């Protein structure tokens, strides 16, 4: 029943639920730290292994020595070109995958808490539709701006439109915010489709299709800086205020009763999450599934307490996306898939398994 804390707050049993929450917090504090350490170790190992995998046949040891040489240790054993494969293509891509995965899972968990909506994902407030519109404007209309800049601007414009619409309709309640996001998403999505339909010539639609499905193929060092920077600057503060989100689980009234300035907190956190998501979308396109389902998967394992949920979701998201992207670039070598396709194909069965196991246990 922990799952439903996010979906539909049952106002008749907040006290019992709260006590349960505290209990489980104490009881599993140690296991949460253990799980966190385990996931962090898994992430490091995943990154180290993922960089050794790829269509180019480069020996494992040479990959690591090449990376070490760039960090000032020793000399790269590889030719300049193959060294470039490791240092300019693989490593930045793997690191971007880790940062984007962490950020998306974190944003998703925060969005789900703020809106008390199990179907909330990082793109809920029109962010991905806005970013897509910005990207389409660059790729198809030839707007003279760097793609990440346009995508970020599009995401922020959509966010502002959503919040303005929700505010114009009254107080900033979750339901109103979500509905405003639906309206803005629909409009931005329609304009995106119109531009694609109107302008895509020859095979140029492929380029934008890859972006719309989410892809890390273009991730170089600047993408690492943007994605990792956003996760550090926005994500870590979000984790630090995780406890505030627990208050939201029981409804705005209960949160206010606990002394939480509901509207101010919601505005601030929504804005921060959107900023983080906007930065991620700008480098990766809108990768689905991670932000929506990973927080649920972690919640099934740890319960709804956000102090555990947020960091564990972020770590799990990072590990998950590193492997999803590794699959996208190696499974059908030399062909490549958009990673957004892989996340759902890999993730949906895993999530289904978690759901079923959870049910059979309880």
């Amino acid at each position, binding site marked *: 029943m922990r799952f439903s804390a996010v979906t539909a707050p049952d106002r008749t049993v907040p006290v019992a639920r709260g006590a349960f929450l505290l209990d489980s917090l104490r009881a599993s504090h140690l296991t949460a730290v253990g799980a966190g350490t385990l996931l962090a170790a898994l992430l490091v190992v995943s990154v180290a292994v993922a960089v050794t995998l*790829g*269509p*180019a*046949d480069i020996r494992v040891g040479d990959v690591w020595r090449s990376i070490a040489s760039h960090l000032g240790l020793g000399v790269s054993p590889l030719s*300049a*070109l*193959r060294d*470039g*494969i490791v240092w*300019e*293509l*693989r490593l930045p891509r793997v690191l971007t995958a880790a940062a984007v995965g962490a950020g998306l899972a974190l944003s998703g968990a925060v969005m789900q808490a703020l809106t008390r909506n199990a179907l909330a994902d990082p793109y809920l407030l029109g962010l991905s539709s806005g970013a897509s519109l910005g990207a389409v404007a660059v790729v*198809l209309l030839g707007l003279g701006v760097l793609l990440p800049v346009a995508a970020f601007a599009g995401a922020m414009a959509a966010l502002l439109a959503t919040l303005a619409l929700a505010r114009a309709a009254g107080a900033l309640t979750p339901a109103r915010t979500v509905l405003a996001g639906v309206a803005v998403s629909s409009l931005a999505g329609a304009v995106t489709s119109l531009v694609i339909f*109107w302008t*895509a*010539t*020859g*095979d*140029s639609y*492929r*380029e934008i299709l*890859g*972006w719309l499905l989410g*892809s890390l*193929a*273009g991730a*170089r*060092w600047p993408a690492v800086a943007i994605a990792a920077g956003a996760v550090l600057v926005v994500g870590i503060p979000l984790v630090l205020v995780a406890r505030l989100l627990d208050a939201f689980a029981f409804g705005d009234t209960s949160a206010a009763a606990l002394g939480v300035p509901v509207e101010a907190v919601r505005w601030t956190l929504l804005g921060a999450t959107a900023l983080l998501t906007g930065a991620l979308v700008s480098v990766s396109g809108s990768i689905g599934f991670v932000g929506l389902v990973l927080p649920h998967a972690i919640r099934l394992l740890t319960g709804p307490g956000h102090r555990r949920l947020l960091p564990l979701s972020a770590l799990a998201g990072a590990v998950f996306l590193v492997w999803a992207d590794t699959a996208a*670039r190696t499974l059908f*070598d*030399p*062909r*490549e898939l*958009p990673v957004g396709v892989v996340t759902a194909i890999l993730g949906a069965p895993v999530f289904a398994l978690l759901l079923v196991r959870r049910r059979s246990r309880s």
Partner: protein
Amino acid sequence: MPFRRSVLLALPVASAALLAGCASGPAAGSPTPSASAAAETVTVDNCGTEVAFEAAPERVVTIKSTSTEMLLALGVGDRIVGTAFQDGPLPDDLADDGAGLTSIADKLPSEEAVLGLEPDLVYAGWESAFAADAAGERDELASLGVASYVSPAACKEPGYQPEKLTWDDVFAEITEVGDIFRVPDAAAELVDEQEAEVAAIEPDDRGLTALWYSSGTETPYVGAGIGNPQLLLDTIGLDNIAGDVEDTWTSIGWESVVAADPDVIVLVDASWNSAQKKRDLLAADPALSGLTAVQNERYLVVPFAASEAGVRSADAAADLAAQLAELDLP
């Protein structure tokens, strides 16, 4: 009514031709038209759709450059009542003949826009042109008395898609369209001319590898192992680094390109993604700028409209061979 679905016809000649076509198998090449004499019905099995032409089409809508250029090259450009989705300018030798053509749509035309011209044939370079949200489904067009024809090289149906495109496939389309339009002599002449042009190409023997870079930035869309790019590369003696992929074109990761480090890069020049834009991208990328072909600027350029199989394939091969010969290679 100039044409009818052949299934409705019980013409012995047509049936015999169909049987002969089936016996040799659709993959063996384009089915034999039943007759090339002007009076008799020409029946073709086109990407799995049987189309019978009782007479030469008089009012044709062409979709994509390959179909427009085919008719111009066969000297029947005057039958074109409208063109759509042209990929680029006509080649010089067809520009005069095609100067008066009317474009009805920059992209895929709607069915109504096509039918408004009262065509008796819609000739498309891609099968996808025949869809309800484009020029109309082939069956529906047929029921309205409008024949449809797709460049056989672009067929996607198993058994109809060429297993690996050959010059015979390219020339077979010329012959087949010549039969449909009752200009077999012009077709034969064009085939002879192109056969000679292809035969005159001296394949490069330096064992060079190549990337056929069609479009894409993050994940390049490249010529793969069984389509027109592979045919042209084979003809000029270049080894396609994506040649093992069983497809006409495909998306491959940049890492595969860097790992293969091709000697030469063929840049497809399209209005939406020019050869220059591709050169700039390759030169600016930290990993790609190290490629041998990029460092030494070993580029060959082919216009997009010539990168798909058709009457320009032979010229494109000859042009690429000439560019390759001029490259300064060790």
